[in-house]
């Protein structure tokens, strides 16, 4: 069993990459992917702590997190799809207004 801090470091790096991506990228799909990366990083943390403390709660939490991520992706991409149909691209710079 490696020290939990190893995992936390990797998770932090991945999370940071995700944040970087969300902040710099334009394409909505890319942003969604970066969000998935961040969620993954969080899940790694959860599992790492769960096995560090030998508890199952973290696992359950990750299961719910995965379910949530799936739902989020479905909705998110659906919104992107809808934007795409009206704007013909998924560049989020174009959707700076709340109605279109």
């Amino acid at each position, binding site marked *: 069993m490696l020290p939990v801090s190893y995992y936390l470091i990797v998770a932090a790096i991945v999370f940071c990459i995700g944040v970087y991506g969300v902040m710099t990228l334009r394409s909505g799909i890319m942003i969604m992917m970066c969000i998935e990366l961040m969620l993954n990083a969080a899940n790694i943390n959860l599992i790492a702590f769960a096995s560090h403390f030998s508890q199952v709660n973290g696992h359950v939490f990750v*299961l719910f997190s995965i*379910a949530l991520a*799936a*739902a989020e*992706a*479905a909705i998110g991409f659906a919104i992107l799809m809808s934007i*795409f*149909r009206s704007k013909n691209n998924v560049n989020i710079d174009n959707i700076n207004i709340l109605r279109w």
Partner: protein
Amino acid sequence: MAEIIDNFIPVAIFIVFGLVIPLAIMFIVKQISPRSKNPIKFTTYESGSVPTGSANMMFNVEYYAYAILFVLFDVELLFLYPWVTVYVNDSVTTPGFTTGFSILAMVLFMIVVLLGLVYEWKKGVLEWVR
């Protein structure tokens, strides 16, 4: 704990196999097979016609409904798998109330998911668009 990881060691090695064998084969083939340099050879095949336009076309947006349904059911599966284990443990150790309850919960859950399917079905989302 260590045993679980042990069980996945073959899996890891299989991944390595899966990566190495095809690459090795491709490398060998590259060495022993003839090569030729005709530029037309590298053009895209389109039944002998000259390909026009980009091949990376768009799928109909309507199909996205299938993807949503897929995620819906995949998540259902995700919860069914733990349920199987729980149900098994319950029914083996304490048959009776707990078993019934876990089944009831699952049936309710499945009905909710099925409602989603039925709703989309009725909405005509499952019809392949013309």
